[in-house]
């Protein structure tokens, strides 16, 4: 289960056990519960999932003036959402797999569960294609790197090649299309994802290759970044990610020397919408411009 869906499940549970008598009280309880969840996980999607659900609760309160009825409705919808979400990756898979045809070479960046669902679906549909996968360093944990994708694709029987992040431009010639996941989808249709996504998108654009994003709609967030700095607050610079650089630096300098070398290792970057061709969500296939439309539906 995706962390964000679990978070929505948890908030639904908060509503169920809540003794709040008014909407205001309930809202307050949900907000503090969201804070706890957001603190616990630094996944962006947990934050966006919590925000979406809180927003949903506020909207519903307008539709159902009777508090008890409203509470019942919210619990039902929350549970229904958790149930439906299990199928959303499949749904995205079936929408996106149609874009993969026989003989194509697909580039993916690192590891994304949604992207893997898309590729699995294409394999199931009997498509024969090969995949290039970037390492997507730094290695924050074992499940987020390209080698995890490579292993899984190997298992699925898809010809797969692991390449350095710095080799993306070199291999772009052979690539027919690029698929990436997203940790967050922002208001203007851009995405926040594992660092390196931005440069892959720029190279894809320069070479005229389509760049597609596959992600669930709970990753939609109300954020309008204009540059990389604007997402700085959202993404924590992980110590683990500098560890990955550290090991290499050890070779060139003494302990004392390399303490002087400054290191920077952001874990995520922001890809502006102009580099994205389409986004595949369980709401349908969206152009980046359509993302703000979906968000407007939600907030107004």
């Amino acid at each position, binding site marked *: 289960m995706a962390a964000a869906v679990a978070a929505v499940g948890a908030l639904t549970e908060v509503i169920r056990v809540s003794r709040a008598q008014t909407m205001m009280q309930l809202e307050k309880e949900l907000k503090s519960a969201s804070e706890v969840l957001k603190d616990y996980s630094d996944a962006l999607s947990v934050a966006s999932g919590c925000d979406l659900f809180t927003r949903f609760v506020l909207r519903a309160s307008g539709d159902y003036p009777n508090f008890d009825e409203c509470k019942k409705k919210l619990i039902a*919808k929350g549970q229904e959402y958790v149930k*439906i979400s299990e199928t959303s990756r499949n749904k995205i898979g079936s929408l996106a797999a149609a874009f993969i*045809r026989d003989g194509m070479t697909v580039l993916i960046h690192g590891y994304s569960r949604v992207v893997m669902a898309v590729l699995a679906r294409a394999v199931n549909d009997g498509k024969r294609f090969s995949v290039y996968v970037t390492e997507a360093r730094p290695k924050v944990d074992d499940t987020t790197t390209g080698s995890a994708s490579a292993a899984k694709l190997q298992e699925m029987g898809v010809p797969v090649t692991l390449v350095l992040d710095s080799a993306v431009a070199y291999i772009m010639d052979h690539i027919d299309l690029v698929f990436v996941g997203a940790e967050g989808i922002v208001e203007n249709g851009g995405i926040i994802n594992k660092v390196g996504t931005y440069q892959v998108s720029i190279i894809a654009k320069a070479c005229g290759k*389509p760049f597609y994003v596959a992600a669930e709609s709970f990753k*939609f967030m109300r954020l309008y970044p204009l540059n990389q700095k604007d997402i700085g607050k959202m993404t924590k610079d992980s110590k683990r990610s500098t560890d990955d650089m550290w090991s290499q630096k050890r070779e060139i300098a003494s302990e004392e020397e390399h303490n002087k070398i400054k290191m920077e290792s952001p874990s995520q970057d922001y890809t502006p919408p102009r580099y994205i061709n389409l986004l595949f969500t369980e709401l*349908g296939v969206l*152009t980046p*411009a359509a993302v703000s*439309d979906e968000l407007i539906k939600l907030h107004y």
Partner: protein
Amino acid sequence: MASKDGISSVLSDPRTQAFISALKRRQIKGSWHVARETIEILRLAIGKKTRLATLGELITFVKQVGCALVEVQPLEFAIGNIVRRVLFIIRDEHRQATRGDEKKEGMYSFMLGPSTGEQHLEEPLANNGRDLKEAIFSSLKELLELLENVHSIIADSAFEFIHSNEVIMTFGGSKTVETFLKTAGSKRRFDVVVAEGLPSTKGQALALALSQAKIDTTLVPDSAIFAMMARINKVVVGTHAVMANGGLIAPAGTHLVAMAAKHHSVPFVVCTPMYKMCPLFANDQETYNDMTSPSTVLPFEEVDSLDKVRVQNPAFDYIPAELVSLYITDDGGHNPSYIYRLLSRYYNPADYSLE
């Protein structure tokens, strides 16, 4: 099954038969005729349904008829689009009749997937569906009337886009563009450069038609497109279909016109009726294309001496949305990035796929 019988009686109807065989032989000239025939056949099909228990039954039935027609010639996108539009009308009429609540669908669709109004599908229809059918028929009649005038509706905006002494380039021959330019020509003086658009001879026919309408017209070979582009103020072309991402499926050769226009920063304007807007996505030249008979490229009489030559004659080009400046439709002028929004105004997302 009763519904299956309904379909075969629609498909065996002489009018449908004639349409299907014309489609198979590619004898129908242009999407407009395809669109009109599709409406007529759907009207006939709905008329044959004497007893309608539920809305769901009618929608499934129309989808089945639509699917059968689409399968005959999947690249005639107008068929599928009209079917979707008729389905939209059906849903709309039903909603109006039942005053169905539409309140705040947005939020709920976000949490729980797009709402299709499925909850109404199984409700029994009043009066065996006769009232609903009547409402649908009157809407279909309006749709047909709109279709009759669609070219002139698009042409109404010609004066906003074509000014005196401009030089306009067009490619091949499109009925929509012809009406558009003629309308502009009724009041303004401007030059038109028509690229032939070989192997079709439509460009030549268009050049003739325009010059007969007293518009200064120059016919140029396709190889002169780039050379001419430096002198052009605007490119105005028609298309075969508009894709959901704002890209085009247009007669082969249109891509090179679009590229040349981009190179010279010349606005590339596409005139298209709404029934050419597809909720489908294309991403490259192969997604939707048709390899047509090579005989128009290399006549059969010459083949004897050239039997080792491979001749390819693709019907279409895919033109990415970035190369299009503006769409002029019967619903006004729109940016390519806005097409997705238009689609949701004309079709229900549940009908994007007709299966």
